[in-house]
Structures are given as structure tokens and as C-alpha cells.
């Protein structure tokens, strides 16, 4: 039965159901059990924003509170995965991944390949991404492109509660390391989610809106900016198609190419910094694989190439807006052949 729950609850429910189904699923993270070194469930925080609250009471010591050392517990999770467990490591903010990069991109991502397929690393590393939380430059980044760049990692960034539950369940069941990116400003978003368990395959984009004039390819929070832009543009008679990539690696280029072939125009919207991001990758691949289908220049909407500002006014200006997305669509519609 489907009912409305928040994206935060969807994360919690996915972990709960997989821990119930599969005893090899364990979880580690900072303050996911007690708070600030306290022992005991009564004051369990469930992580910095309470996403995993209640899981310790149900699953006990399969949830491990870790010291404030991402490099230690992410390494431990990867090692446990190589030894047959299915660990979920919760990193508060993706910004903190830097200190455990060797474990992630040199070890987890490489095991399957360097051991001739004999070792698998079914680990999920969950972390919050994105700006707009008034948390300044070290807690607000959209670092999805960094992980997408590394072969051997899978990268997921959902936009709805339904996708969040299904993609997280699939990520836990997947035998490869998955970087699961949760946008902190989507945690409160509610949507219909079935109570039963279900898995959405990794590498399948979702067409969230159909249209014939222009394709917008995006993911995460920006899907909602694109939908807002589409509503504005519809009043002007412009029908945009929106492709939500959902997983950035593997990438569903087939759906992107189908859409661009249909509309002939492309706007890439990415909340990540503008150089070498998901949007530029999509633009390049479309140019290489479907140049003949393009009727006009590709437009890209991304933040400026600067750290996320702490000033709320500047932060709001930094994050791509629906108005910017709509303007980009209008620009590509004016450009090129008619």
C-alpha cells in the first residue's frame, strides 16, 4: 500500500527493511546510535539530521557508532564488504569524503578488477549533498562529479521519496560500491511510497515530464527547479521534457539521446560546480553521439565556479534557480536553425 512519507523516512525505511531481510547488512556512522559518545538508545540521534533514528532500537549492535574519523570507518566498512558483509557507511556530509579517498577510489573501486573478479565490495556510502542549508562552503558541496569520474564506483542521487527507497534498496543489494547522495534540502519532501520493499535498477533514468520543444537533463534537487521552470514555460506554449538521471554511474545515455533526438534541444542543469560536471559530460556525449539531432546550441545551468558562499543572500544567488533554467530554455529555442 502506498502512502505519503518524506524522503528522510524513505531512507530510514529502506535501511530498516534491508536489515530485516538480510542479516549481513550493518551500518556505521557518527552519532547514529548514541549522541556525542553517550551509550544507549533512549537518546539515539540517528545521525546528524536524525535520518536513521529508531533503527538502533530495532537492530541493536548491527549499528555501530564510530569515532570522528571518516577514514577509519569508511575503510572498515570497505574491508567488511570485502569479507562478506553488506555495510552502509553514513558520512554526514559528502564534503568529508576527502579524508577517505584512498579507501574509496584506490581500494573499494578497484578490488573487483585487481583481484580478477574474486573480490566484491558491496558497500554503500551514504552522504548528504547540496547547498541551501546555510552550512557554508565545507558542508554544502555537490561533489557527485568527483565520484562519477572513478570507474568501479556507482553513483546515485535521487529526487523523490519513491526513487530514494527503491534506489537505496538496490544499492544495498548491489555487489559494487555505491556512493548514495542524499540532498539535504529534499529530506522533508513528501511523496507516495509503497510500504513493501522494491528495488529500482541502477542506470535507468526517469522521464518525469514529456515535452517536444526542449530536453532538460538533470538530477537531485534540480529536477524540482526544472519542473518549476517547465510550469512557467508551459504558459508560454513551450513544452519541455525533463530527464531525471537518478543514477550518474552507470549513466542512462539511451534515454538522454532518445529525448534529445525527439526535441532537438538540450539544457543541462547541474548543481555541481560548472567545470567537468555531470552537465558538461552529458553535453559532450550528446555532441559526440547525436550532433545531427541538435537544432541549436546546448545550454548549461550550473552555479558559478566558486565555493558555496556563507552569506544567505549570496548562497541563494549561487544555487541555480527555476528562472535561470527557464531563461536557458528560451535561449536555446531562439538559437540555431528553425
Amino acid at each position, binding site marked *: 500500500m502506498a502512502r505519503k512519507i518524506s524522503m528522510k523516512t524513505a531512507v530510514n525505511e529502506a535501511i530498516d527493511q534491508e536489515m530485516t531481510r538480510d542479516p549481513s547488512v550493518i551500518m556505521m556512522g557518527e552519532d547514529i546510535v548514541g549522541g556525542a559518545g553517550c551509550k544507549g538508545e533512549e537518546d539515539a540521534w540517528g545521525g546528524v539530521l536524525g535520518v536513521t533514528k529508531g533503527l538502533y532500537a530495532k537492530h541493536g549492535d548491527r549499528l555501530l557508532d564510530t569515532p570522528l574519523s571518516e577514514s577509519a570507518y569508511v575503510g572498515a566498512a570497505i574491508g567488511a564488504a570485502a569479507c562478506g558483509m553488506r555495510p552502509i557507511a553514513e558520512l554526514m556530509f559528502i564534503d568529508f569524503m576527502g579524508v577517505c579517498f584512498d579507501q574509496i577510489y584506490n581500494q573499494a573501486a578497484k578490488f573487483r578488477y585487481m583481484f580478477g573478479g574474486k573480490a566484491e565490495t558491496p558497500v554503500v556510502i551514504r552522504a548528504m549533498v547540496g547547498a541551501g542549508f546555510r552550512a557554508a562552503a565545507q558542508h554544502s558541496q555537490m561533489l557527485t562529479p568527483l565520484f562519477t569520474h572513478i570507474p568501479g564506483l556507482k553513483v546515485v542521487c535521487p529526487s523523490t521519496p519513491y526513487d530514494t527507497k*527503491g534506489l537505496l534498496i538496490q544499492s544495498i543489494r548491489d555487489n559494487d560500491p555505491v556512493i548514495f547522495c542524499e540532498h539535504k534540502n529534499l529530506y522533508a519532501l513528501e511523496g507516495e511510497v*509503497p510500504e513493501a*520493499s*522494491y*528495488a*529500482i*535498477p541502477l542506470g*535507468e533514468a526517469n*522521464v518525469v515530464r514529456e515535452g517536444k520543444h526542449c530536453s532538460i537533463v538533470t538530477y537531485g534537487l534540480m529536477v524540482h527547479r526544472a519542473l518549476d521552470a517547465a510550469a512557467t514555460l508551459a504558459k508560454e506554449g513551450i513544452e519541455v521534457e525533463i530527464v531525471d538521471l537518478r543514477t550518474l554511474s552507470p549513466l542512462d545515455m539511451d*534515454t538522454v539521446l532518445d529525448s534529445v533526438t525527439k526535441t532537438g534541444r538540450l539544457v543541462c542543469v547541474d548543481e555541481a560546480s560548472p567545470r567537468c560536471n555531470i552537465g558538461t559530460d552529458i553535453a559532450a556525449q550528446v555532441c559526440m553521439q547525436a550532433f545531427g539531432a541538435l537544432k541549436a546550441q546546448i545550454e548549461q545551468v550550473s552555479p558559478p565556479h566558486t565555493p558555496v558562499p556563507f552569506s544567505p543572500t549570496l548562497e541563494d544567488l549561487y544555487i541555480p534557480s527555476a528562472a535561470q533554467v527557464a531563461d536557458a530554455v528560451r535561449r536555446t529555442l531562439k538559437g540555431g536553425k528553425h
Partner: protein
Amino acid sequence: MAAITPIVMPKWGLSMKEGTVNDWLVEVGTQIDVGMPILDVETDKIANAVEAPDAGLLRRKVASEGDVLPVKALLGVLADPDVSEADIDAFVAGFVVPTADAQDDADAAPAYQYVEVDGLRIRYARRGAAQGVPVLFLHGFGGDLDNWLFNIDAIGEKHPVIALDLPGHGQSTPKLPGISLQALADFVGHFMAVIDVPQAHLVGHSMGGAIAAQLALSQPQRVASLSLIDSAGFGSEINTGYTEGFTRATSRRELKPVLELLFKDPTLVSRQMIDDVLKYKRLDGITELLESLGSALFKDGKQTTQPSLALASSNTPVLMVWGRDDQIVPAAHAAHAPKGATVELLDGAGHMAQMERAGDVNRLILRCIGD
């Protein structure tokens, strides 16, 4: 004053609140016959033509193309030539769309209910008229009660209507009471007992038709009549490419061409329809469940049991409706109808005749159940 007949936004499916007017298909001044397609309306689930509820002259188009209007909003006006323009103006001005609240009162029961039958949680809808023998809708393999979105409310205007998600389907518990038609028919009998319906007119589509026939044979007292639409059980051939393709498909890309086999007009397969089916198929256990049911009932292009053929020995009134272009169960099986059955082959429809020719199918069902 001569009669003025409003054409209103239909309610297609239990969740429909509003529809978008896509295209008018006729001009003002056209003489309309009952069942004639008048305009195209699109909902978040499907696009289809609104058919004329009555005959008459189209005097006024009230809704414009692109308008988004609530259910029961005025779309157009039919009236005799001697009705004055002023009277039509007054009718349009005075037309009151029932508010959402008023409609909720009218349908006081929630859209969906749940009941436990033999340990399985079953989703069903119960609506329509308060009095009379209920009409119970049984969907087909992999389907759910939304397969009846063009039928439930139309039949419900005069009769109590009930539609369920069979076990292992829709939003009912993803488990089967058994993998034979007999087990499923027994289950439907138990469902009727639990919701206190001693007897019903059964409307069955595809596999649901064979279940209905099986129930009519094993518990004839429960079945007032049978309306079987593109039904299984009347012969051995079946397109197992469809049932197996449906079971195997995991992505939109794989599922779309499979669902298109259901319709004469493949454009009826909307993005939302594919999404809804994928949401069901992704639930844990559904693929395995459909595999076991599919291989028990349909194997190597054959239906393993054909209970509908035995209806010749029963006294239950039977209506058989078939889309002439059915690509799943051949319309030629209509030739195996029991003696005395009403048989209708419909042009312009495939396996989902109750969707593609909804108005005609509804009229045939109403006639069969004695309207």
C-alpha cells in the same frame, strides 16, 4: 422548454480529479449520436475520447482546448434547434460544478478499502448505487482494478460496483492463494463471502474472465451473470510472448513495446501507465510470482486449462465481448461461445476492449445485467 443536455468532464478512475481538454472532435451544429466521440480529454493516467451521453445537436462548446477542468465541469451543451441562444446562455451561466467536497460526500466511502481474505490483504473499491446485485470486476494477468477506470463509474451510476486487486496483483499482498484458475476462483468466492456479497454479476477481463467462468461452474449460486471481455479459457492459443515479456521486463524501455501489444492504438500506452506497471513489477517477489502463475496457466503458446468452454452446461447468462484486433487472446475464440451467449466483436479495439471501446462495452454490460 425543450431539453438541454450538458456534456461534462467524465471521471475516469478513482483518483481522477481533473482533466485537460485536448481537442474537440466535432463542430457546433453537428448532430450527435449516443456514443459518438465528441472531444479528447487527457488525465495524468491516460488520454481518451469523451463519448456523447445522449443524442442531440451540439449547440455550444463551453470548454476550450487546453483548459484544465474538474470532474463534472461543463464541457459543452446539446440542445434541440428550437432552444434559443439565450436559454443556452442561461443554462451555461447557471451550471454549477459540484465542488470537490460535495463529490466527496456523494462518494462518502474512501476510494479504496482493504480487507483480509485467507490471510492476504486485498485492496478493493466499492462504490455506486446502494441497492441491487453488485457488479464485481475481475482484472487479468498482471493487471489491477485501474484496468476498469472507464467502466467502474459508468456502471456504478445504476448498480453497486466492486473491483478488487487479485492477490499478487496491484496493491494487494504479493502472494498467490494458488496457481490454478480453481484456486483463484475459490479465492474470489471467499472474498465475496468476507465482504458479505452472496451474489454478483461478474465482469472478467482476460485471465479474470477465466476465473469468473470457473467460479460460475463451481459456485453457480454466487454468479448472476458473466460478462467476459477478451477472455481467457475459450481456447488453447494465447500470446505467451506477451505474458513472458510482461513478466521479464524490468525497464520502461523493455516494458513499453510489451504493453503496446494490449491495444489496437499503441499511443494509449502513456508514460504514467508504464510507470504504474513498473512500480508494481518492482515490488519484491512479483517477478517470481508472475513467473509461477504464468507458467502454470500459459505455457508454450497454450492455455493449460479452458474452463470457459464448459459454460455450455451452465445456466448463467453470458456476454462475450472481444476486440477484433486482440493480439493476446485471439478473437476467433469468440466462436467457442456457449449456446445462448451474446457475442460482440468490436472494431478498433485490441485486448483492452473495455478501455478502447469503453462506451460500447459499458452499454453491453448494462444490457447483460438486465438494465
